[in-house]
């Protein structure tokens, strides 16, 4: 299977701070890649560079931003506009051929048809996040970057969101997502990428990370991750 997403030697510096240090990996079509790590590890920076929202200091990402859908950590939606108006606006800005058709398709896919004429500011956090993800999918991109998509959602909303995302991956979309909830990475990720201090420390299936962290931890990926980070980067567990 050929790689759909290629990240090669990515470096990002903010003045003296090196947020990403020579990060490289690939992802295939339909693959769900979880990016985990402590605060300040560089997860959001990595996803925003993949999405084209930031330029890297050096290195490259393929494909370009126009082939990557993006749902940032905070829902990037206009609260004074309705769900349908938000979708239509971004469909037109993205130059989608049939904006009305794209809006209708996304309303159906996200289960928001009944809320189409409701202002986004009046929606629950979960529904706002669904609109946020829907905006990333308007152009039917082969790659979707989700930055902590389930943060601030209740368990039911999380379940529905992941059901939707897994469905996308099954349809062939490559999904790369960051999360603080390691169990989500274990449950939904085909692969886990561990970042700490801007360095890629691990790239492989979650089960392999379990083994790397220590078999004696009883299948708890979160404890395995902490053990792994302490072993590889003692100062990087809390991001300090």
């Amino acid at each position, binding site marked *: 299977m050929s790689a759909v997403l290629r990240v090669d030697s990515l470096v990002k510096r903010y003045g003296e701070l090196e947020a990403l240090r020579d990060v490289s990996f690939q992802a295939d079509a339909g693959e769900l890649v979880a990016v985990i790590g402590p605060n300040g590890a560089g997860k959001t920076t990595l996803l*925003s560079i993949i*999405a*084209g*929202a*930031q*330029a890297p200091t050096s290195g490259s990402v393929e494909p*370009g*931003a*126009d082939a990557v859908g*993006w749902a*940032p950590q*905070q*829902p*990037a*939606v*206009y*609260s*004074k*506009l309705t769900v349908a*108006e938000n979708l239509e*606006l*971004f469909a*037109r*800005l*993205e130059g989608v051929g049939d904006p009305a058709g794209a809006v209708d398709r996304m309303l159906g896919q996200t289960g928001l048809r009944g809320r189409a004429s409701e202002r986004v500011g009046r929606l629950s956090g979960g529904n706002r996040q669904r609109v946020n993800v829907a*905006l990333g999918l308007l152009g039917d991109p082969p790659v979707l970057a989700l930055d902590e998509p389930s943060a601030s959602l209740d368990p039911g909303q999380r379940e529905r969101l992941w059901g939707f995302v897994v469905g996308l991956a099954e349809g062939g979309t490559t999904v790369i997502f960051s999360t603080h909830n390691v169990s989500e990475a274990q449950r939904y990720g085909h692969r886990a990428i561990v970042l700490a201090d801007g360095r890629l420390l691990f790239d492989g299936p979650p089960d392999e990370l379990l083994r790397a962290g220590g078999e004696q931890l009883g299948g708890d990926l979160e404890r395995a991750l902490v053990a792994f980070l302490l072993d590889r980067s003692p100062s990087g567990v809390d991001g300090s």
Partner: protein
Amino acid sequence: MRWLLRKDLLILGRSRLLVALLVIYPVVIALLIGFAISRSPSRLRVAVVDETPPGQTVLLGSQRVRVSTYADELFSQVQAVPVATRAEAIEKVKSGAVIAAVVIPPDIVSRLSTGLARGSVEVLYNGDALEQSLVQSTINSAIAQANIAFSEQIQRSAAEAIDALLQGRNLAILGGPQEVIGLTRIPATLHAIIARQPAGRDRQELEKIATFAGFASQNLALSKNVLATVGQPIQVNSTLLHGRRTPLNTFAVVVAVSVSLMFVCVLLAAGGVALEREEHTLARLIRGLVSPGGLLAEKGVLAAGCSFVVALAMLAGVAAFVAVDWSRFGLWVLALAFGAVAFASLGVAIGALAREVRAASLLAFLLSLPLAFLALVPPGAVGPGFYDAIGVVSFLFPFKACLQALDTAVNGASPALGGSLVHLAGLTIVFGAFARLGLRRAE
């Protein structure tokens, strides 16, 4: 850009309170500033105690000058509240019914009648430092005006007396001699008498007297002119070097419209850019959907367009009540358009620096209001060094240039419109560059 414009107009339409505030608040501020500038200070309420007996006159030679002339002149300078006694005047000042009291003492007539002593009036006032300053300057001005009017009357009387001495007149009606021979006629009369006199000591004495009478009449005639000069030594003839004389009320209209244009435009532009940050949509937009420059231009066009419409409507509305030259309408449009674009550029720069709408609005107010007031400080009102500093600050922001452009467009004032428009265009480019730099933080 048109879809972003449509979106922003939709959001504006749904933010009725914001729109109402954006329009009403600047208009109210503008009107307050306009009124403050255009209204001359209202006449102060001043209690006047005239202790001189009614109908008193000052006798100057054979002429009489009414003391009431002085009081009348004083009354015309203030809103006079006549009171009977000094105690009553003090009570009114203490209670705040009047801001000051002027007491004209009964001995003013006798002092002036001596021709040697000056009369004096007493001023009583109260209040804080600002009121004290206002009262002092107003009362001093009023008394100076009254003094001038009174001295002119005295001068006229003195001139009439000199005329009587020179030309001769029947002064019986004023209690003087029935026929007074004028000083100017004495030399000729004496020379006629001298011609009939034999040579000798008497004739020589008469010739000396005739010579003195001629000399005296010439110099006394000169003293009339000297009196006029001393009465008002310096007369003011004013010449406007550039532009047309601008009535205060039309200048106030220009100030009010410029202030409105600035507030609506800067707040809308700053708020528009900051809203994209607050809604987290900025990064989504500039990752390839819209260029940063295009986004700033869209916000600028929206803000400039809305503020232009508000300002033009305001100018046209106020022009219905103030005489302005409608034939210059094209110039109004030009000045407002350049001003709006420059303010929009400043607004997007502020919006690009702020992270949220409230911070952007606050920053816009904090920056705009003092700049507007600084631009209105007239030369001479502050020290030269401070005025130069104000000039530099005013030059770096669009308000003064916009005010000058609009003043020229509406009133034909100086400097030339072209210079102000070039200035505004330059500031548009500079603040546009700042906005672009500010937006880089989101990229």
